């Protein structure tokens, strides 16, 4: 059994490996502090599977993941940070408005802030977990990743089913 498995494992395993490794290699990207897309000192290079590979800044020739000079950095830092404008309900907002100036200010704060990170934006790094796990950036596989994963799962399930049926017949 173990021997049979070993002989037949390469195809599904290879698919799994592709599914895991490809997005990881795509994950390396440059993140700049919001609003400083052309300042080349403070960008963060996300480590790829082989560690940090880029030694050029956003303006440098190498860039990261095809980030093309300042344009790439602009893209990375572009767009405003998503504000959670709908975080407070109408009733709460009404209550805050009754508080006068303080309430207005609080409402403004509530509208523009939330304890968590803004909505995931891979270009900005998203949340800790997303960034650290190498969530695909806009240069990532897009719909390709779920398709590969689904195909891998189907192939693996089919393989296991075939194994079981084979054993049942042999038994």
């Amino acid at each position, binding site marked *: 059994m173990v021997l049979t498995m070993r002989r037949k494992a390469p195809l599904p395993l290879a698919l799994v490996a592709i599914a895991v490794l490809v997005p990881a290699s795509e994950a390396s990207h440059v993140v700049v502090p919001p609003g400083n897309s052309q*300042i080349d000192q403070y960008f*963060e290079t*996300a480590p790829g599977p082989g560690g940090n590979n880029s*030694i050029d800044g956003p303006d440098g020739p190498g860039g990261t993941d095809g980030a093309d000079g300042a344009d790439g950095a602009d893209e990375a830092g572009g767009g405003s940070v998503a504000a959670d404008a709908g975080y407070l309900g109408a009733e709460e907002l009404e209550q805050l408005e009754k508080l006068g100036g303080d309430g207005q200010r609080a409402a*403004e704060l509530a509208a*523009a802030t939330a304890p968590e990170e803004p909505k995931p934006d891979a270009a*900005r790094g998203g949340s800790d977990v997303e960034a650290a796990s190498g969530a695909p950036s806009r240069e990532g596989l897009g719909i390709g990743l779920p398709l590969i994963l689904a195909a891998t799962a189907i192939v693996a399930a089919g393989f296991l089913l075939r194994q079981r049926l084979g054993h049942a017949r042999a038994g």
Partner: protein
Amino acid sequence: MRRRLRVSRAILAALLLTLVLPGSASAARGLELGLTDSVYTAGDAATRQLWLDRTVDARAGLVLLSASWGGIAPDPRPAGFDPTDPNDPAYSWATLDAAVQDATARGLRVAIIVGHAPSWAEGQNRPSLEEAPAGTWRPDPVAVGQFATAIATRYSGSFSPAGLPGSVLPPVRVWQLWAEPNLSNYLTPQFEGHQPASPDHYRQMLNAFYGSVKGVSSDNFVLTGGTAPYGDPPGGRRMQPVTFWRELFCFKGKHLRGTKCPDPAQLDAISHHPINVGSPRRKALSPDDASTPDLGKIARILHKAERRGRVLPKGEKSFWATEIWWDSNPPDPEGVPEAQHARWLAESLYLLWRQGVDTAIWFQIRDAAPEPSFGATPQTGLFLQDGTPKLAYEAFRFPFVGDRTGKRKVRVWGKAPAPGPVWIQRSRGGEWHDLKQIEVPVSRVFQTSIALRGKAMLRARTDSEASLAWLQK
């Protein structure tokens, strides 16, 4: 039996006292807040003074002034020039003198950062300016020490400048050497091939600086340059800060294996610049980079250096954050929304304090003009360019933060305008209601816990003013 009764009564009395007395803030450790901005050394006195006044209004206790060595010293070096003599006529101190005087006159504590070598103090075999920007190439440690003697003597508190007999310049006690010594923008080379080069050279500069500054007055306090938060792999233009500190304190590898250290670094405090690409809670992706929540990576190295005698003089060193900021929108369309800017400011102060930082410096007091563009210039100020205060100004004056520590428990933290009573309040039914009263200590920093389920709007209030509201989830 009687004794047991006495003990029981004492316990009962203590319990009753805790019920009757208002809660006391548990945080005695302070957090000094400072600001840094090139406007403080502006040539125009009216502009400089206006912004120093606003700095006082913002309740900053300290300003970090920039002293460009290459701008103050003559270049080229003239014959007969004595670099240790602050009265040497070839030095140009006028702008810095005025800034130190104006800031001190307003009760601000002054710190000075020295950087940017004159060309004659750079090392040999200088590469192109593209590879090594002006003032960055292997600054001569001996010359660093000589300039340190001159500048520390000038602001020793007993120095009379030439041409102004009888007048004495105010003292400056806090001295920082070099901005972001892990970046090629300020110090080159960072690497020789793939081997770190800047930490060793910086250590020599720092030790010369330390000896000279302390030689002028043992009351002087020497601070390292603040490291930038993100770096490149070996061979790049930016060294990762954790690598830089490891090398500076003669350690190798993640397990901090000691290497030969014949001349350990001398300092009173180390500094880092936790400048984030996201929220203040966002950790750096690389283990050798360090954003706001990652100061422990650097503190670990420092503490091991303290234990192993790889930092001198012996004793615990303090930790400063000499540059924190985010760009805001408005005015920068790519900055963070103004209210979030304020929130992140307060939250970063809290997180830095929690990690042991005792001085935090925000960059800057007012936005830079967007010339040539917003992307190329910082709009990080507490004020817009035209002098309109942002919400960040209020967050800086009276920072207040909530941090959920359990389903029913929230830790609140802040820095009150003054010692004394502070009320933690919650907004309910359109009104603010007291949740807890605490007594804020002299340090003005308070931290306490409140029972709170679900989301709520919180704030802190004194007799005369309230913090910005904090939305707690």
